[in-house]
């Protein structure tokens, strides 16, 4: 259900800029179509009466009758003319509208792709990717589904129904009343059933989600299930949920499909009664054959949309709610813009990085870093150690301005990072994260991500320096191997090597490295270590360190805990101090 349907409609209207003419043209065609459809029964009434008169005249003269151009044929073709007119209007609106919804969606999707670049990291860190993806795909699909057919169908249905009732009144009031009653009843019924259907689908979705989760969990952990001989229990639990899903699914499917026949039944009941009444009128001579048929044509035309109207209204509500979810995304706060006249970093960059009284918290009122001060001199290697959640990543987040400090300054060669543009700041850093991100493209494209115009030689040189050249060459397509989404052919360690090659090629002044933990085997780890050592040469580097050698060799060690730096110094200084670091180091040999 949308929170504010009016606002959502208005925004959709705005988003439809450039395509609104389609809506306007289609509406005009739709109205004309309805007029044409409502006119046809009148014409066929005239036609049938005309033919019947001709036939009866022939019979009275004892002749048989055959349609020819002079006797009825022209009138019959006239029916084709009226219908063709209706068809033209219908086709007009259908064709004009066939591009409307997807173009509207394209506009919105383009707004999203623009928005994604402006959202702060906080937005992404707080959400599963699937949530955002679903807004762009599923929610907008709901919008297009309704816009595509639903919207005009609703218009046509309503107009046709009202028009049919009005036209019927010109024939007979009692018949009209009966039909209107049946229509109203049907409408009420669909409302009630539709609400129930909605609930049933909701429930099915919930059970489906639960079962999906269970299956995913069981498949991922199947070694554990088998090791502990838990197969039967696990199977039983999946069976139970599958059974529940089957019941919920059957019920939802049934409800969704059962409305139409029930409404058709109501309309058939009305037809029976109306047929009796109309038959009597015919006997009395107050109704002609043609008009009798016209009445039933109106009933058919008017009742046909009934089954759809309330379904469409539900869909419409769902679509507006979906649109609101997209607008929610578009309305998120954006990162503060770069300064109007950004300063530039000195050229060449020496790479002196300083934190001065930096304060920061992810949530207002929950300070994490209270007063962080540190200086990394040009070319120094800074090791960051601490438990998970101690704030190692936070330090990187602030350095790269993925998040903004709440107080204090971070400077590079004396320039406050907030006074330069983000792109300039980030260009000066190379970053290798543990969660190695590679995109769907060739290995060469992935390595050249930091330097798009790199030649193949440069790419290979970077790969060699990162000790990944050999591995790439074992792949059938070498550097042109396309990495797919899951890229199962490339292991975690190799992925990290590729990201090191990528950073290598970009040749940044400063570096941020996140050392691999357990998922990498010893040999690959050695490659990674060597590659990292190579890339850190002569560059100011920040390393989230897991390896003792990295830490021992560091020029500066930052020991973090609960978001703050609790100790800093060299290995020897910190050992002498006998604090947390010393304790951590000693435990290795306990």
């Amino acid at each position: 259900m949308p929170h504010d349907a009016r606002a959502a409609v208005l925004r959709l209207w705005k988003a439809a800029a450039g395509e609104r003419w389609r809506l306007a043209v289609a509406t005009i065609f739709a109205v004309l179509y309805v007029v044409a459809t409502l006119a046809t029964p009148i014409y066929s009434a005239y036609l049938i009466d005309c033919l019947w008169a001709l036939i009866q005249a022939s019979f009275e003269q004892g002749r048989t009758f055959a349609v020819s151009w002079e006797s009825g044929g022209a009138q019959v073709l006239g029916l084709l003319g009226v219908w063709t007119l209706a068809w033209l209007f219908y086709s007009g609106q259908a064709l004009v509208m066939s591009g409307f919804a997807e173009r509207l969606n394209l506009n919105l999707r383009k707004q999203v792709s623009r928005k994604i670049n402006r959202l702060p990291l906080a937005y992404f860190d707080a959400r599963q990717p699937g949530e955002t993806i679903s807004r762009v795909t599923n929610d907008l699909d709901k919008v297009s589904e309704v816009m595509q057919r639903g919207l005009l169908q609703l218009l046509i249905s309503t107009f046709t129904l009202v028009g049919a009732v009005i036209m019927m009144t010109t024939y007979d009031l009692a018949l009209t009343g009966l039909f209107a009653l049946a229509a109203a009843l049907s409408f009420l019924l669909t409302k009630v059933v539709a609400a129930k259907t909605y609930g049933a689908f909701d429930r099915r979705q919930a059970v489906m989600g639960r079962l999906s989760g269970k299956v995913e969990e069981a498949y991922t952990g199947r070694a554990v299930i088998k090791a502990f001989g838990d197969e039967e229990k696990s199977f039983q639990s999946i069976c139970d949920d599958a059974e529940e899903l089957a019941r919920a699914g059957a019920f939802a499917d049934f409800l969704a499909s059962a409305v139409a026949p029930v409404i058709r039944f109501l309309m058939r009941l009305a037809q029976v009664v109306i047929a009796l009444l109309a038959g009597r009128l015919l006997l009395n001579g107050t109704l002609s054959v043609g008009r009798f048929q016209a009445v039933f044509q109106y009933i058919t035309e008017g009742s046909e949309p009934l089954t759809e109207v309330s379904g469409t209204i539900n869909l419409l509500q769902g679509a507006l709610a979906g649109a609101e979810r997209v607008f929610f995304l578009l309305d998120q706060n954006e990162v503060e813009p770069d300064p109007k006249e950004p300063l530039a970093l000195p050229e060449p960059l020496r790479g002196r990085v300083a934190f001065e009284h930096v304060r920061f918290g992810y949530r207002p009122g929950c300070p994490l870093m209270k007063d962080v001060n540190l200086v990394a001199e040009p070319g120094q290697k800074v090791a960051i150690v601490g438990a998970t959640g101690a704030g190692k990543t936070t330090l990187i987040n602030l350095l790269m301005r993925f998040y903004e400090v709440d107080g204090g300054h971070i400077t590079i060669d004396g320039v406050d990072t907030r006074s330069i543009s983000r792109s300039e700041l980030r260009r000066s850093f190379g970053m290798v994260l543990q969660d190695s991100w590679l995109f769907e493209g060739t290995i060469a494209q992935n390595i050249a991500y930091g330097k798009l115009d790199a030649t193949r030689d440069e790419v290979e040189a970077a790969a060699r320096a990162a000790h990944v050249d050999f591995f790439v060459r074992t792949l059938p397509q070498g550097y042109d191997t396309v990495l797919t989404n899951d890229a199962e052919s490339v292991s975690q360690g190799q992925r990290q090597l590729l990201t090191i090659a990528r950073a290598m090629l970009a040749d940044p002044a400063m570096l941020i490295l996140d050392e691999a933990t357990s998922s990498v085997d010893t040999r690959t780890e050695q490659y990674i270590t060597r590659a990292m050592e190579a890339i850190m040469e002569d560059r100011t580097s920040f390393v989230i360190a897991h390896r003792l050698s990295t830490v021992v060799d560091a020029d500066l060690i930052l020991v973090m805990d609960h978001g703050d730096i609790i100790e800093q110094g060299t290995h020897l200084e910190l050992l002498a101090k006998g604090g947390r670091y010393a304790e951590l180091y000693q435990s290795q040999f306990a």
Partner: protein
Amino acid sequence: MTTKDDSRQSKAGTTCDTDVVSGECSPAEGAVGRGAFALLGRLMAPYRPLAVAALVTLLLDTIGTLYVPTELSALLNSAIGAQGMGPLWDHALRMLVAAVVGSGSCVASYFLAARLAADVGRDLRVSVYRKSLELSASDFERFGTGSMITRTMGDANVVQQTIVMCFVMILPVPVIAVTSVVLAWGIDPAMGQVLVAIAVAMTVVSLVAIRRSAPIFLHLQEFVDRMNVRLRETITGVRVIRAFGRERRERRHLDETFEAYAENAVRVNLIFSVADCTTFFLMNVVEVLFVWLGADRVGVHAMQIGSISALVQFAIILLFFMMMAQFAMLQVPRALACLTRATELLELEPSIKDSVREAPAPPAEELLANERESPVAEFDHVDFRFDDASEDTLHDLSFAVRRGEICAIIGNTGSGKSTIAKMLLRFHDVTGGELRVAGRDVRDRSLADLRSRMAYVPQRAWLFSGTIASNLRMAAPDATDDELWHALDTAQASFVRELPQGLEARVTQGGTNFSGGQRQRLAIARALARKADLYVFDDSFSALDYKTDAALRHALSSELGASARLIIAQRVSTIRDADQILVLKDGRQVGLGTHDQLVETCPTYQAIVESQQRGGDLRG
């Protein structure tokens, strides 16, 4: 776990030209085997009465649907014939009966169809899951977790929905065609023939339309997938994208994907619209045709004027259902592709079967004595090779794990450490030599017996949604709370005591509400809750800091002193106290002995020790 598969896959990739990088084929390309229909037949078999009932009600429904206009025109005819109200009542009554029977049957057939489809869908899901439990590790990896989830959930859904659609939208078409022709024939044989001609013409048009639009329609799914992939990529890679300042490039790529989708979606919509409009036009032509020809037939006394509208109704109903069927048919290839994929899985022979070589059991006392004397596990010249590999992953391993001893395995990955653990649990079978557990070949033991002797801590600490207690009781269903607490304490998982709900604390899917180290300790506690002959720790201490690692090892030795322990590790410090250390290099046993012996004699071990003293881990 991924690294293992990778090394295997890349091996396969270099030796033969298998498709390592691209994923599985899309349903558009997948050949639909006869297996799909056979499987559908098997799935439907238990519900034959249900299916027959659904078909019968469907038939009654269409007869009702067509009988109403027939009677209506009959009523009109008798009114024109001025036969008085009597016959009118008669016809109205028939209409009423037709309406009640028709609509009632329709509701019933929808009910039965929904139920049938749901049951078939459930059976498909359940049999896929059942099969997954039978598969060995390498069988399962052939499909991969993601694909298996799709097979269990998505594929079954598609099949289920398509069955419903078949009943509601496709199956009525032939029934309506036959019934309406019969009824039209009854009114006037000549008009019946006209209707046959129209039905045939429409079928041809529909088939052509389906043939032409199906590929485009399936193609659209690929664009949807691309949109998903690109979005996911952009969102998960947001840090890297910004770090490299590639926002504009990513935006352009996203926009291109969106545009490509929109273009194709518009094209598909256009095709649908044209089909829709064409049907509309045909309806018009047919109506005019019936009026013209109908008037001619009335003119020669072959039928009555009121019947024209019945005939027009027949034709319109037929065309309407044909159009619906046309849309529904587009779903069918997808469902068949899903069924084919399911067949492929369901017909796979598991490479490991429960005690295939049922060996005669020796007399009980001898057996017991034998068990007591034999090592808990003994590798006797064991080789192991993956199906698709050209080299042994493990070659000629011979060592024994004894009661009260710690056996450790160290070596780089690709050296096959984890495979050893998996062979003990019979996730993989030896391809050479023999692996004996308590004196008997593992293949002669039932899987249940074999696995009940072991407690396993996997490399990737995986927990199941539920509570801490429910997770621990997986290993020991009858354990008391005290026993569980004891296991937790031994596993250094005292943080559970600080949780407000203690043992009943919620665990989310995979245990993601606990940190990596906590998960690992809970997984250890789970194994400890079980009284086993052999405890297998597959690189289970990696996420622990040195302090916890050391404390845990102390606790374990006092706790499990009498059992055998197999510890697979990466850190020398974890295993230096082991009674024997097996050093693996590229799947070969290059050293076996104590730490002190190996430091002297084994170059590979020396290298590992050296590298770790220079650069051990430091995890806080």
